[in-house]
C-alpha cells in the first residue's frame, strides 16, 4: 500500500485537469463532485497508509518514482518520503480539504467560475501534497512555489475588483521574499552536505557540533522562508489582505494548510535546528512577538474575516514559539488542532457572510444566534477550543507549548499566557458581536437571514466534533494521558530529541501553570461578556472618535471602569497604534519602499537607453575600457 503513495497526489492533479479543461462545459454538479471525490479518495488512501505505517515496524519509507535530474555529481530523484509526520500532514490536508471542498459546493454555488475554482483548489491540494511528501528539499521547494502560485490564483479569484488583485500581488511578493531565503538555505545545504535529500542531510547534520556557524546560517535562511509562507513578523502583512479570496479558500489555504508549511518545514529539519540554539531563540522570540502583536491588532478589527486572519497569524506565532522552545510535537499538535478549529471558524464565518448576503462587518451583524443555530453552536465550540478551555482540543495543544515555554524561560510563558488572554477576548468579542444582541443590519438583510444548506452545515458539524475531541490524541501524562501523538511522531524527531530533553516539570507546577492560564482566559471571557453582551457595546463606526469615559453607574460597573482605564484604553490605543502605524506604514512601508527603490532604479536605468547610436557606441567603448581596467587593477 505504501508503495502506492504516488496515487495520493495524482488524484487531485487529475481532478484539476478534468475541471480545468472542462471548465466551460462541465455542469456545476459534476465539477464539484469530481473535485471533492478526488480529495476523498486521497483521504481514504492516506488513512490506509496511516494504519499500515502504525502497524508496521519500519517507520520511514522513501519511494523513488523516477530520476528527476541527474547531471554530473548532482542526482535528485523525484521521490516521496512516507513517515509519521508526512502521513499526519496528509491526513490533515485531505481530511480538512475534503470537508472544505464539500462546503465549497454550497458556498460557491452561484459563482460563474465554479469549475475554475475547483480546478485551482485541486491544484492547490496537489502542490501541498508535493510539499509534505517530497523526500528532498527540491521537491519540497516545488510544492512550496506551487502552493504560492495557487494561493495567488485563489486570492485573486474574484478578479473583477482591483483591490483583490493588489492583495493577490502582495501575497505573492511577500512569499517570494521568504522563498528567497528558503532557496539560499537550500543552496547552502547542498554546499555543506553535498545533497538535498532529508535522508542524507539530517543524519549528516547530526554529526555537527551544537552552535555551528554554517548550520546557524542554514537554519536562519530556512526560517526566513518560513516567515514568508507562515506569515510571521515581519512578512505577515499579506495574510490579512489575502482575505479578499473566497472564504473556503481562507479556511483551506490561509488557516489549515499552506500557512503551516513553514512549521512543517522546520519540524522536518528539526535535526538541524536543534544544533543552532541561536536560531531557536530567534524563532521563539519572533513567534511569541507575532502571537501577541497579531492578537493586539485583532482586538479592534471589525471585519469578521480580518479578526480570524489576525488570529491565524497569532496562532501560527504560537506554533513557532513551540518550535523555538523545542516542543516539536507540541507545535505539530497545535498545527493539527488549529487546522480543525480555525477551518471551522472560517467556514462558520463564511456561513454568516453567506446569510448576510456578503456583509463582513460585525457592526452590522448581531443576534444571529436564532437564525443560524448550527453555525452559532459550531463556532462557539471552535471558540472554546481556540481559547484553550478544557477539554477542547486547543487546550491540550496550547498547554503543551506553554509548558515547554515555561521550562525554557518563564518570560516566554508569561507572554504566551498574555497572548492566550487576548485570544480569548477577541474571539468572544467576535462571537458576542455576531451572534448576541439585536440585529444591526438592514431590513433587507434581516429578511434574507437563513441557515446555510446541508452541504455547508455538515462540514461544520464534523469539524466541530474534531475541534472538541481532537485534543485527546495527545493527553499529557499529568492528566493521566498516554501522549499517543508524541510516541507516534517520535521516529521523526530522533535526532532532535538528543538535544531537547523531555518535560521535567513536576506535576504541581504543571497544574499551577494550567490553572493560571485557564483562570486568565475565563476572566477575559467575562470581560468580553460584560462589555459586548451586558453593555451591548458596538465598536464605533469608522471616522467617529471613541466616546469619552461614559458617566456610567459607579457601583455597578466598577470592574468595568477599572478595566476600561487600566486595560482597555491602553490596549485599544496600542492595538490602534500597531495596526495604523506599524502595520500599515511601518512594515508595509518598508516593503513598498523597497519596491519603490527598485522601480526608481529601473526608471533611471531606462534613461541609459537614450536611443542615440553615438551614445551607444561611446558606452560600448567605455565598457571595454572599464573591463580592461578591472582585469588589471581590481581583481
Amino acid at each position, binding site marked *: 500500500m505504501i508503495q502506492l503513495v504516488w496515487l495520493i497526489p495524482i488524484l487531485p492533479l487529475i481532478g484539476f485537469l478534468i475541471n480545468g479543461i472542462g471548465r466551460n462545459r462541465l455542469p456545476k454538479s459534476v465539477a464539484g463532485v469530481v473535485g471533492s471525490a478526488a480529495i476523498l479518495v486521497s483521504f481514504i488512501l492516506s488513512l490506509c497508509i496511516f494504519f499500515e505505517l502504525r502497524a508496521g515496524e519500519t517507520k520511514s519509507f522513501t519511494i523513488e518514482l523516477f530520476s528527476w535530474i541527474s547531471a554530473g555529481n548532482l542526482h535528485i530523484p523525484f521521490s516521496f518520503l512516507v513517515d509519521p509526520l508526512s502521513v499526519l500532514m496528509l491526513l490533515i490536508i485531505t481530511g480538512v480539504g475534503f470537508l472544505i471542498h464539500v462546503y465549497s459546493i454550497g458556498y460557491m454555488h452561484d459563482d460563474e467560475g465554479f469549475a475554475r475554482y475547483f480546478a485551482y483548489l485541486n491544484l492547490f491540494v496537489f502542490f501541498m501534497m508535493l510539499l509534505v511528501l517530497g523526500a528532498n528539499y527540491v521537491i519540497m521547494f516545488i510544492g512550496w512555489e506551487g502552493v504560492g502560485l495557487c494561493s495567488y490564483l485563489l486570492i485573486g479569484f474574484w478578479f473583477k475588483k482591483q483591490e483583490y488583485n493588489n492583495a493577490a500581488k502582495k501575497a505573492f511578493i511577500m512569499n517570494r521574499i521568504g522563498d528567497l531565503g528558503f532557496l539560499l538555505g537550500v543552496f547552502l545545504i547542498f554546499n555543506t552536505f553535498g545533497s538535498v535529500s532529508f535522508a542524507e542531510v539530517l543524519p549528516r547534520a547530526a554529526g555537527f557540533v551544537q552552535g555551528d556557524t554554517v548550520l546557524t546560517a542554514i537554519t536562519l535562511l530556512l526560517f526566513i522562508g518560513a516567515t514568508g509562507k507562515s506569515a510571521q513578523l515581519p512578512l505577515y502583512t499579506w495574510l490579512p489582505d489575502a482575505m479578499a479570496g473566497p472564504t473556503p479558500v481562507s479556511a483551506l489555504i490561509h488557516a489549515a494548510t499552506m500557512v503551516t508549511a513553514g512549521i512543517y518545514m522546520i519540524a522536518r529539519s528539526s535535526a538541524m535546528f536543534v544544533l543552532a540554539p541561536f536560531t531557536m531563540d530567534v524563532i521563539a522570540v519572533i513567534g511569541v512577538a507575532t502571537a501577541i502583536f497579531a492578537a493586539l491588532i485583532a482586538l479592534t478589527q471589525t471585519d469578521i474575516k480580518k479578526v480570524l486572519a489576525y488570529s491565524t497569524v497569532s496562532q501560527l506565532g504560537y506554533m513557532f514559539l513551540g518550535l523555538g522552545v523545542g516542543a516539536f510535537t507540541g507545535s505539530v499538535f497545535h498545527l493539527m488542532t488549529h487546522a480543525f478549529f480555525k477551518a471551522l471558524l472560517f467556514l462558520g464565518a463564511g456561513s454568516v457572510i453567506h446569510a448576510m448576503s456578503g456583509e463582513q462587518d460585525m457592526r452590522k451583524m448581531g443576534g444571529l444566534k436564532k437564525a443560524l443555530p448550527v453555525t452559532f453552536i459550531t463556532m462557539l465550540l471552535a471558540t472554546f477550543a481556540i481559547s484553550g478551555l478544557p477539554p477542547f482540543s486547543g487546550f491540550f495543544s496550547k498547554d503543551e507549548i506553554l509548558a515547554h515555554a515555561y521550562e525554557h524561560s518563564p518570560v516566554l510563558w508569561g507572554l504566551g499566557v498574555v497572548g492566550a488572554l487576548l485570544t480569548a477576548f477577541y474571539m468572544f468579542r467576535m462571537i458576542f458581536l455576531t451572534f448576541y444582541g439585536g440585529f444591526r443590519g438592514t431590513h433587507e438583510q434581516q429578511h434574507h437571514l437563513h441557515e446555510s444548506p446541508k452541504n455547508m452545515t455538515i462540514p461544520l458539524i464534523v469539524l466541530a466534533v474534531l475541534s472538541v475531541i481532537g485534543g485527546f490524541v495527545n493527553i499529557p501524562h499529568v492528566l493521566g494521558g498516554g501522549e499517543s501523538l508524541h510516541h507516534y511522531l517520535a521516529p521523526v524527531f530522533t535526532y532532535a530529541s538528543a538535544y531537547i530533553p523531555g518535560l521535567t516539570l513536576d506535576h504541581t507546577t504543571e497544574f499551577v501553570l494550567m490553572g493560571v492560564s485557564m483562570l486568565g482566559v475565563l476572566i477575559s471571557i467575562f470581560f468580553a461578556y460584560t462589555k459586548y453582551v451586558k453593555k451591548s457595546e458596538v465598536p464605533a463606526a469608522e471616522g467617529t472618535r471613541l466616546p469619552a469615559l461614559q458617566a456610567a453607574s459607579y457601583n455597578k460597573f466598577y470592574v468595568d471602569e477599572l478595566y476600561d482605564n487600566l486595560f482597555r484604553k491602553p490596549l485599544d490605543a496600542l492595538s490602534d497604534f500597531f495596526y495604523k502605524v506599524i502595520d500599515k506604514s511601518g512594515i508595509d512601508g518598508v516593503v513598498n519602499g523597497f519596491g519603490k527603490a527598485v522601480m526608481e532604479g529601473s526608471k533611471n536605468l531606462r534613461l541609459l537607453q*537614450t*536611443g*542615440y*547610436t*553615438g551614445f551607444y557606441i561611446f558606452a560600448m567603448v567605455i565598457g571595454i575600457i572599464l573591463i580592461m581596467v578591472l582585469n588589471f587593477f581590481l581583481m
Partner: protein
Amino acid sequence: MENITQQIQAVPLDHYLVLSSLLFVIGVMGVLVRRNAIVIFMSVELMLNAVNLLLAAFSAYRGDPAGQIFVFFIMAVAAAEVAVGLAIIVMIYRNTRSIDVNFLNRLKG
C-alpha cells in the same frame, strides 16, 4: 613572391604595428565623433584596413600564408557589409531626409 616578402620585412615590424594602431584609433574616433552614417561606415572601413595591414605584416614576418588569406576574406566580407549598410542608409535617407544618426531616436527607453 620572395622579393615582396623581403621588401615588407625591410621595414621593422614595430612600424607596421604603430601605423595600424593609429589607423585603428582614427577609425574608432571617427565612429565616436562623426554623426554622418556614411562617414561612420567609412571609419569602420578604416578600422578594417588597420586589421588587414596588421595581418599582412604578421603573415610576411612569420612566413605563414594564413594571415594573407584572412585578409582576402575580410575584404570580401567588408564589401558585403558595406553593400547592406549603404542600402540601409538609403532607406534612412528616404525616411528622414537625413543621414545624421542622431536624428534616429524614435526607439529608446
